[in-house]
């Protein structure tokens, strides 16, 4: 069942003010409808305009094929998966995580971590996708949510994920993940991990100022 986790401030780039937003655990029909009616047509249209993976990365549309509705319905029946949404009117961001991940970094090899399977901000919030992105900080809020889940699960904030090329610089440079390089089992994707020390400092930074 959908559960309100937190109320947060989301920076509106247009008004240059903060709007009230909510973070929810477990997606519901509202999120499915927003994805189908609002996200999907924009993603499909933009994806049809580009032809190569490089162009898709440059247009910030490499996730156009992600089936959020199908994935969220499967996740609802699994103890090891959770879905999250950021809402500010419409659904502004979505995340799917797996609680059965294990660390690869030497410092946390074999230790339990939260593996972020999918994370996306709404198409209208993306630089290079629209001329004037609407909200800033959705990715930051979702990663902070994943860290909180990791702490609540006894994993001390540890996270792991594979990043699409379009998002690598954010995870590496801004969020502070360790880039462990190309993963042969995930074609073309780098594997990243967040240690509990970096997770602590991530949570201390002010949301919105980082994206």
């Amino acid at each position: 069942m959908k559960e309100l986790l937190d109320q947060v401030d989301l920076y509106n780039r247009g008004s240059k003010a903060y709007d009230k937003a909510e973070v929810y655990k477990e997606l519901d029909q509202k999120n499915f409808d927003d994805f189908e009616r609002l996200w999907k047509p924009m993603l499909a249209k933009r994806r049809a305009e580009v032809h190569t993976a490089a162009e898709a990365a440059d247009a910030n549309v490499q996730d156009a094929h992600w089936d959020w509705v199908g994935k969220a319905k499967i996740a609802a029946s699994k103890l090891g998966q959770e879905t999250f949404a950021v809402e500010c009117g419409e659904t502004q961001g979505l995340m799917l995580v797996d609680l059965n991940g294990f660390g690869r970094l030497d410092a946390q090899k074999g230790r339990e971590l939260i593996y972020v399977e999918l994370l996306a901000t709404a198409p209208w919030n993306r630089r290079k996708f629209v001329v004037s992105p609407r909200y800033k900080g959705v990715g930051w809020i979702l990663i902070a949510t994943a860290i909180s889940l990791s702490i609540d699960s006894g994993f001390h904030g540890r996270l792991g994920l594979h990043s699409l090329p379009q998002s690598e610089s954010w995870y590496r440079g801004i969020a502070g993940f360790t880039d462990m390089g190309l993963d042969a089992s995930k074609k073309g994707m780098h594997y990243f991990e967040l240690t509990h020390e970096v997770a602590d400092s991530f949570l201390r930074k002010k949301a919105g100022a980082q994206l």
Partner: protein
Amino acid sequence: MDRRQMTLMLSDKEMTLLDQLAANRGMSKTALVRQALRLYQSVTERLENGDKVFVERLSTLEKTELMVL
């Protein structure tokens, strides 16, 4: 999150193991039991779907199939 309470009776041996595992993993006993439940569901679902789950010994590459009865 909706939570329900249950009392779990463990033998000394089981409790000792739970204490050791929790200490080794840096987790509370509750977190460890929850994690065990998630992993158990993940493994049994894969087996029920017809997948095989193996444990591989790195030194010899010998694989042992995991069976859940």
